[in-house]
C-alpha cells in the first residue's frame, strides 16, 4: 500500500525556491532516509509531508488523501503522521507523562487511565519509564528525543517523520535514539528520516533519497546509492561525508 505519494512538489519562501520539483512514493513499512547538503531542501521536503510548510505547488497524498486540498482536514491527517524534531520541542510546562498523554486525551478522547497505561508502554519502549514524572528540563538531550518519539507514537501514527533527530545530540546520546528508531523500523513502521547518520541510512534504509538544489537527484537502495552513485553531485557529497 502506498503511504505517501509526492507529485511535483514545489515550495518557495518568497522569491527563494527551496523545492523545485520533487516526486516520490513511500510504500507501507518502508524506511526512507533523506540525505543531502545543508540548505538543499531536505528538511523542507519532510515538513511538506505533514504540511507544516504550506505547499506552493504540486500534491502530497497521505494514504491517498491529498493534503494540499483545503477540503481535507489536515488536523485529522496529522494524527496519522508522527513527527520528531531536531530540537525535540517537548512541552516544557508538562511532565513527560503529560507530554505523551496530551494528544491522545484531547484528540482521541482517551480517558486518563488508558492514556497513561499506553504512555507507560511507550516509555518502556524508549527506556524511560522512570522519568514519567520528570519535566523535560530535567532530561538529557537523548532522553528528550526518546520522549519526543514516545509522544509521537502515542497517537498510533501510521507514518513517522524524523527531522535530523540526532543532530542536536551529544555523540554519546546518538546511539540510544538510533536504537529506538531501529526498533521502530523492525516493527514495520513507515518512516521518512532526514539524517546525517550515513551508518543508519546504510543499515536501516530501504531506500535513500539524495536531495540537492531543490531536486531529488538520486534515489536508490543504500547499497547502490552509497556504493555506486550515478550522479556527480551524489559522488561529490558522499566523498565529503563518508
Amino acid at each position, binding site marked *: 500500500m502506498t503511504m505517501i505519494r509526492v507529485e511535483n512538489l514545489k515550495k518557495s519562501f518568497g522569491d527563494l525556491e527551496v523545492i523545485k520539483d520533487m516526486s516520490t512514493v513511500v510504500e507501507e513499512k518502508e524506511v526512507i532516509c533523506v540525505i543531502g547538503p545543508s540548505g538543499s531542501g531536505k528538511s523542507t521536503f519532510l515538513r511538506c509531508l505533514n504540511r507544516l510548510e504550506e505547499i506552493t505547488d504540486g500534491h502530497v497524498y497521505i494514504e491517498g488523501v491529498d493534503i494540499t486540498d483545503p477540503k481535507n482536514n489536515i488536523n485529522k491527517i496529522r494524527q496519522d503522521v*508522527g*513527527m520528531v524534531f531536531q530540537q525535540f520541542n517537548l*512541552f516544557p510546562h508538562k511532565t513527560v507523562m503529560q507530554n505523551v498523554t496530551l494528544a491522545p486525551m484531547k484528540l482521541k478522547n482517551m480517558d486518563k487511565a488508558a492514556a497513561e497505561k499506553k504512555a507507560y508502554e511507550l516509555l518502556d519502549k524508549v527506556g524511560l519509564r522512570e522519568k514519567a514524572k520528570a519535566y523535560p528540563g530535567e532530561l538529557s538531550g537523548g532522553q528528550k528525543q526518546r520522549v519526543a518519539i514516545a509522544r509521537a507514537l502515542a*497517537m498510533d501514527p501510521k507514518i513517522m517523520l524524523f527531522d535530523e533527530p540526532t543532530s542536536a545530540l551529544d555523540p554519546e546520546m546518538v546511539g540510544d535514539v538510533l536504537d529506538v528508531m531501529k526498533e521502530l523500523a523492525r516493527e514495520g513502521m513507515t518512516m521518512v528520516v532526514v539524517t546525517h547518520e550515513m551508518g543508519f541510512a546504510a543499515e536501516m534504509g530501504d531506500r535513500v533519497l539524495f536531495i540537492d538544489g531543490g531536486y531529488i537527484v538520486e534515489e536508490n537502495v543504500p547499497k547502490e546509492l552509497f556504493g555506486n552513485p550515478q550522479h556527480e553531485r551524489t559522488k561529490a557529497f558522499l566523498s565529503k561525508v563518508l
Partner: protein
Amino acid sequence: MDAWINTWGNALPYLLEGLQVTLYIFFIAIIIGFLIGLLMALLRLSPFKILNWIAKIFVDAIRGTPFIVQLFFIYFGLNSLDFISMDNTTAGIVTVAINAGAYFSEIIRAGIQSIDKGQTEAARSLGLNSTQNMRHIILPQAFRRMLPTFTNQAIISLKDTSLLSVIGVADLTQEGRIQASATFQAFEIYLLLGVIYFIVIYLLSMLASFVERKFVLR
C-alpha cells in the same frame, strides 16, 4: 504626635471605606481588562489583516491618549449620547479595564511571541488545531513568562483608579480629599493616604512574587 494619631484615627474608617471601593473597582477592572487584553492579543496575532488592524488601532488609541482623557470621554462623552447611561463607578471600571486591556494585550502578545515556534509545530504535528495549541501549549507557557510584566501593569492600573476621584467616585483618594478638606490637616491625611496605597501595592507585589514562585518556569 497625639494630634496626628487622633486625626488618623478619625479619618481611617472613611479611608478604609474608600479602599474597599478602590479594590472593588480594581479587581473587576483588572479581570475585564485581562479578557480584553487576551482578545486583542489574539486578534493582533490572527491571520486576518482586518482583525490585526482593529486590535492595533485599539491599542494605539489607548496608548496614545492620557488616562484622564479616556475617563472623561467615557463618562462625559459617551454619557452625553442618548443611548448610553453609566454611573461614575461603572464608567470608572470601564475606563480602567479598557486602559489596562490595551497594555495587557501588548504584554500577552509579547508573551505568546516569545514562545519558540517549535512548540506550535510539535503541537500541530500531533494533530492539535490552532485553538487547542493556544490553549494547552502556548498560553500556559506565555502566562508564566509574562507574570512579572503583568504585575507591573496591574500596579499601574491600581494607581490609575485614584484618578476616578475626579469624576466623583468615592474611592480611597476621594475619601482622602474629603477628609483633608474637612479637617484642614492635609499633610497628615495625604501622608496616611500614601501609606495605605503603598501597603496595598506592596501586598499585591508580594502576592505576585508568590504566584511567580509557584509557577516557576520549567
